[in-house]
């Protein structure tokens, strides 16, 4: 277990260097001079362009730029944006918002998805099963922005139950609808995966034994059946959490949430390579750690899995 962990952590290093350079290079090669459109229909004064080019080393080649950047990064400094704001601050203020939203979304999709999955897996082909089948199909087919705009319009504008956008305080109650929107597609997948997994294990020997022993049904399902059926669901939830932590450009945009997705989008558009790379580095780390966590969780769920 310990060796496995060390090996996995060491693997992070080359992945980390590779991804950061790739991203740096990609943003660097996006066409468009960052100062060409900055002053509207007028050219920016040459003095201003000189000043910025010099300040951000934009006249150096990409390797020099990348190494200067990495040097600062190793000292814990992500650098600053073209407008002189510290990127550390940007990440520190927007990341908690993304995490809050991700946790709400994950909770909603886990609770609703699992409940629907277990209920339909135990009673297949009933009315409920068909209802869930159709509604999950519907959710999967709808793009996120459609779900987002429709719910925002219904709850926020038409019925006036909630405010259409999230306020600066990011109250939990305001995040329910954005969380639902963000988690809706994954919720449908979780319901379906859980259903199949439960239905399959329902016919296995150990379940039959447990029932034959005369265990109450609640214990058979809750302990024996569920624990074994959870592995694919946990995999799904784990990778999904990684994706959710990466920010949700669309959902954050619709509901006016100051999260990491918005920041990435804005920086790509304005060609601020330092900001994009810094945020992506954090995301890569989070994603890798999430994957590791999921792998470790397997062992906890299924005693047959051991890591050496």
């Amino acid at each position, binding site marked *: 277990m310990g060796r496995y962990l060390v090996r996995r952590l060491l693997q992070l290093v080359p992945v980390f260097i590779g991804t950061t350079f790739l991203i740096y290079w990609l943003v660097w090669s996006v066409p*468009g*001079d960052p100062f060409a459109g900055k002053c*509207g*229909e007028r050219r920016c004064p040459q003095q201003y*362009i000189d000043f910025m080019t010099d300040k951000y080393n934009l006249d150096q080649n990409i390797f020099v730029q990348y190494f200067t950047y990495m040097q600062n990064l190793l000292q814990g400094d992500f650098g600053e944006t073209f407008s002189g704001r510290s990127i550390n601050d940007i990440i520190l203020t927007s990341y908690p918002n993304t995490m809050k939203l991700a946790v709400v979304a994950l909770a909603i999709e886990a609770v609703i998805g699992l409940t629907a999955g277990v209920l339909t897996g135990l009673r297949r082909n009933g009315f409920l099963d068909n209802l869930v089948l159709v509604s999950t199909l519907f959710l999967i087919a709808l793009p996120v922005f459609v779900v987002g705009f429709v719910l925002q319009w219904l709850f*926020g504008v038409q019925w006036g139950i909630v405010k*259409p956008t999230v306020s600066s305080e990011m109250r939990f109650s305001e995040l329910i609808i954005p969380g639902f929107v963000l988690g809706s597609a994954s919720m449908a997948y979780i319901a379906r995966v859980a259903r199949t997994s439960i239905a399959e294990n329902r016919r296995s020997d150990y379940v039959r034994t447990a029932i034959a022993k005369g265990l109450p049904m609640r214990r058979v399902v809750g302990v024996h059946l569920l624990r074994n059926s959870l592995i694919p669901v946990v995999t799904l939830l784990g990778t999904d959490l990684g994706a959710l932590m990466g920010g949700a450009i669309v959902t954050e945009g619709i509901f006016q949430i100051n999260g990491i997705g*918005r920041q990435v989008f*804005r920086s790509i558009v304005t060609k601020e390579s330092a900001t994009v790379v810094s945020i992506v580095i954090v995301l890569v780390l989070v994603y890798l750690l999430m994957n590791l966590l999921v792998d470790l969780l397997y062992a906890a769920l299924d005693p047959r899995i051991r890591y050496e």
Partner: protein
Amino acid sequence: MRVSKRASGALAVGAAFALVATGCSSGNSDGGDAGASKDGAITIHGVQPENPLVPANTTETGGGKIIDNLWTGLVEYPNNGGAPQNALADTIETKDSKVFTIKIKQNTKFHDGTPVKAKNFVDAWNWAAYSPNGAANGSFFSDIQGYEDVATSDPDGDGPQKAPQPKVDKMSGLKVLDDWSFEVTLAAPTAVFPTKLGYSAFMPLPDAFFTQKAEDFGKKPIGNGPVKFVSWQDNVEIKLTRFDDYTLRDKLKIKDVTVKLYQDENAAYSDLISGNLDFMETVPTSALAGEKYKADLGDRALNTVTPSTAFIAFPIYDKRFANKDLRKAVSLSIDRQAISDKIFFGTRKPADSWANPLTPGAPAGNCTSCKFDPAQAKELLAKAGGFTGEMVFYYNADSSHKDWMEAVAQQVKTNLNINARAEGVPTFAVFRQNINAYKMKGPYRAAWQQDYPDIENWVNPLFTSTGSSNDGKYVNPAVDAGAKEASAAADLEASHKKFEEVLKLVDEDVPTIPIYFYGQQAGHSEKIKKLELTNVGELDLSSVEL
């Protein structure tokens, strides 16, 4: 400053739209409830400023609208679009439009309590012009004597060489006379100089600015305007509050203003119609279709005009577009009324003049090739020897220009039998990069919003051979000479007359073609009972009553 005959024409139009803007109050008694206003708070639409809030470094509207409220300059532009009036300036005197003596009102205060003195202007302007400070609005000071000595640029563009260190850090044309007056000497006579002084680049800066880094000041700006800065949460909101020591104009009738920073204008619109946002200066395009915003907002929808024009510009450096008859033919073949009605639902007006007629000094209807006349267009095309090959109309695809640019291309195709089509360039940055490098291969869209209300701003930057936005390399020595003479005129009235003549020369050459004048559709909540819009269509906070 005098208002010329032409300017009063613009004034009348402006006054009409101010009436429309305040028309919303008519349903109630006149004005709002003084009690509700007194400690009232509103939330208005905004976008995250791209730069720290330093006046000389703000070139975009997100930061510009905050700056305009935080500062009051020497002159200000009235809401009705008319000629500028003195604000912080007591008098601005000149005999020859070259040496100006500016007296400022005594004992007005910055938000930190320090007085606004003449040196606050001189220091601020010197800071902005000094090139190592890298202020994006630095070139606004190029009129002033000694600008070349403080602003140097990289001799080979962006290459290995560095810009040389300027010899001095103060412009020789600026002189503090005493605490409340200073003298400005320009490099050449410029009649319009006092008008420019209302632009944000010319705002005074408090002593506190010079003791810290500009970026740090820009995070907690200290101005001298009707509202003061409270806090700024990046991408979320900027909070402002009434400045109780403000004496230059009426104080705010309300107390707190929150500028909510939106990324998505549809989200803002949802907030507006559900009463969570009190003012939005431009409703999104999606709400314009079928006049949805009028149904949603009723009499809270405001429909006004702003002094901006959309053009199609020609790359005159490309030989195929060097013939003025060809350019005229293209202009005459475009049915501007149809574009305005069908694509913009009447929210934008067909352009018929070279300078936007809302601008003081700008005559209406002086563009003779802005009418729709396919027959004459065909004649002119034949005279120009036809056009071979494909005529591609370029636009930046990251903004909603596709529909009208395709309509333009289609009309040119139908009416002139030219093989025309429209093509989008992915982003504004790439689009501008090609334009700046003189690499455009066909006509392209352009727009101009005046920096300050004067016809000069519609001629010098756009049509003189050294103009900052003459991107098509249009050169006409007669226009250059005329514009130079007009700029140097002894007073504004004479200057306006000469500029009018210069535009007649431009009208013969058709270097660009005006297509439409921008309109603006704003909306406000039920909470606001009375409001006015500024000359550029932003909310005038001082006018708001609840």
